[in-house]
């Protein structure tokens, strides 16, 4: 007897999967991300992310630009919190040239960096709300980002890609309007934040939607190089501001909020709590604001005031040297990292004494943690994948550099 194969059962055993292209441009991914998903109905079986859609070769560009011209490049990394990127870059160069920045400038930087952390977290938390269907919170709370941008505008003239501060300190002192706007912001923001919290935090729909959505353990998060709020949501209390205090962060009293499960809800809550801590830091900085200069005395790097350039020989010479890239830069290599909106933003700068860096490498937190995304969404629902992505706060500019 020969056995005959039962064709009908083998055909049934061969499962049919669908291939779904999520992106490159999809309104729910908030940026240009492509994920090729292998779907079993609504369950994701396999995911393959493709990145690089807005790659602008920053590392190559930086090798051909004088140090002060690299600041605008850093704006475009994480464009939701560009001041942090700018400051991180200034501090890297200051470390290389061995420049001590006065306390006042450092406190001003802290205020700006904490404002931009708030702006970054406002975007991420409201977008999580938006993707779970809470559009009201998004439209309502997003007004606060506008207020922050108005403060930026008053300080440096720009709003999104700020190019704020200079190597050696700040470009100018805060104007009275800037102080006023800051004080009004500090009064208004806590009300908005607690109202937004009340809308969303204990909302049954929101909780059901986000708890246990896209979880990651602390151990896996560390293996994947997570830093920032996403790592802290998984229960690891690593924060660059505390581990390696830069820019006088050691002077301030603040807590590091951490989560437990590393799921979307924890990532959301960590960011909300961090906004409260940022407000605390800004208040302390305002209270303790020292008097003094707003920039260091480094004429080789810090542009002189324009009146002096027109009237004083020395100022004219330094101005010419800075603008034409004729300043002597020490040889050496430094690494400096700051706590960006999404984690440890590091600059590895190698100088051979030329007017441009010999090599500049950016440690971009988004690029590093986005590779865990397939692991976090496999086996889950498609709708959870969307939420996981928005709670990771992957910013395309930082991802692709």
């Amino acid at each position, binding site marked *: 007897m020969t056995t005959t194969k039962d064709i009908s059962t083998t055909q049934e055993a061969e499962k049919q999967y669908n291939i779904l292209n999520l992106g490159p441009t999809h309104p729910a991914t908030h940026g240009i991300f492509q994920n090729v998903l292998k779907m079993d109905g609504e369950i994701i079986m396999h995911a393959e992310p493709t990145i*690089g859609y807005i790659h602008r070769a920053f590392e190559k560009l930086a090798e051909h630009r004088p140090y002060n011209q690299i600041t605008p490049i850093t704006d475009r990394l994480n464009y939701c919190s560009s001041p942090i990127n700018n400051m991180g870059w200034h501090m890297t160069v200051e470390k290389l040239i061995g420049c001590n920045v006065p306390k006042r400038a450092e406190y001003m930087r802290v205020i700006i960096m904490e404002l931009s952390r708030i702006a970054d977290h406002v975007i991420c938390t409201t977008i999580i709300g938006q993707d779970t269907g809470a559009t009201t919170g998004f439209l309502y709370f997003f007004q606060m980002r506008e207020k922050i941008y108005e403060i930026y505008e008053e300080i440096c003239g720009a709003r999104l890609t700020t190019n704020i501060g200079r190597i050696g300190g700040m470009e100018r002192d805060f104007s009275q309007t800037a102080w006023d706007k800051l004080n009004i912001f500090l009064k208004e923001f806590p009300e908005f934040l607690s109202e937004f919290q009340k809308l969303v935090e204990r909302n049954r729909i929101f909780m059901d939607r986000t708890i246990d959505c896209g979880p990651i353990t602390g151990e896996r998060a560390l293996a994947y190089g997570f830093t920032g709020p996403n790592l802290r949501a998984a229960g690891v209390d690593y924060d660059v501001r505390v*581990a390696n205090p830069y820019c006088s962060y050691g002077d301030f009293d603040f807590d590091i909020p951490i989560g437990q499960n590393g799921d979307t809800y924890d990532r959301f809550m960590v960011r909300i709590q961090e906004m409260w801590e940022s407000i605390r830091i800004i208040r302390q900085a305002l209270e303790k604001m020292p008097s003094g200069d707003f920039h260091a005395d480094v004429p080789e790097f810090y542009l002189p005031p324009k009146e002096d350039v027109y009237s004083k020989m020395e100022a004219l010479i330094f101005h010419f040297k800075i603008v*034409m890239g004729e300043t002597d830069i020490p040889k050496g290599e430094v690494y400096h990292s700051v706590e960006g909106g999404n984690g440890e933003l590091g600059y590895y700068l190698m100088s051979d004494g030329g007017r441009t860096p010999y090599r500049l490498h950016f*440690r971009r937190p988004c690029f590093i943690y986005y590779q865990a995304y397939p692991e976090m969404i496999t086996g889950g629902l498609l709708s959870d994948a969307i939420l996981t992505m928005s709670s990771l706060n992957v910013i395309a500019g930082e991802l692709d550099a």
Partner: protein
Amino acid sequence: MSELLDIISAKLKTQFGEGLKSAEMLYDFPVFVVDKKNIVNVLMLLKDDPELEFTFLTTLCGLHFPDNKGEEFGIMYQLHNMKNNWRIRIKTFMPDGDMDMPTVTHLWPTANWMERQEYDFFGFNFINHPDLKRILNMDEMNYFPMRKEYPLEDAGRDDKSDKMFGR
């Protein structure tokens, strides 16, 4: 931090002897240069040794020095011990034309995209990498753009010429 330099260089010296080529402090960082055939063992030791525990890979990046004959290309690994807040940098160099590098993806999954990026930029051939292909540039690209021989701009332009200003 310089004590850390002594501890680690003593450890690496006993384990690898000549494999450790140099150890020095560069600004606030202990920096070690090791030879390529030992690199994975060195990183494994640093990660697993109970006294060192450099369990977090902060970043890695490629380096290109076309004038260093025999050591044209290099890779820098930056490790972090979060418990004691120690940070170190390990470098290894290789000649142009021998771009094979052992992968470290089995030690840190995060090295996966970092290595793909450095492959994309410099052309390092990471042996046993699970998915070595271009990541930021398009697949059709037939050169490695971060190498120093590729100028950024049209060579005919004079207004930004290096002979006028500095390097």
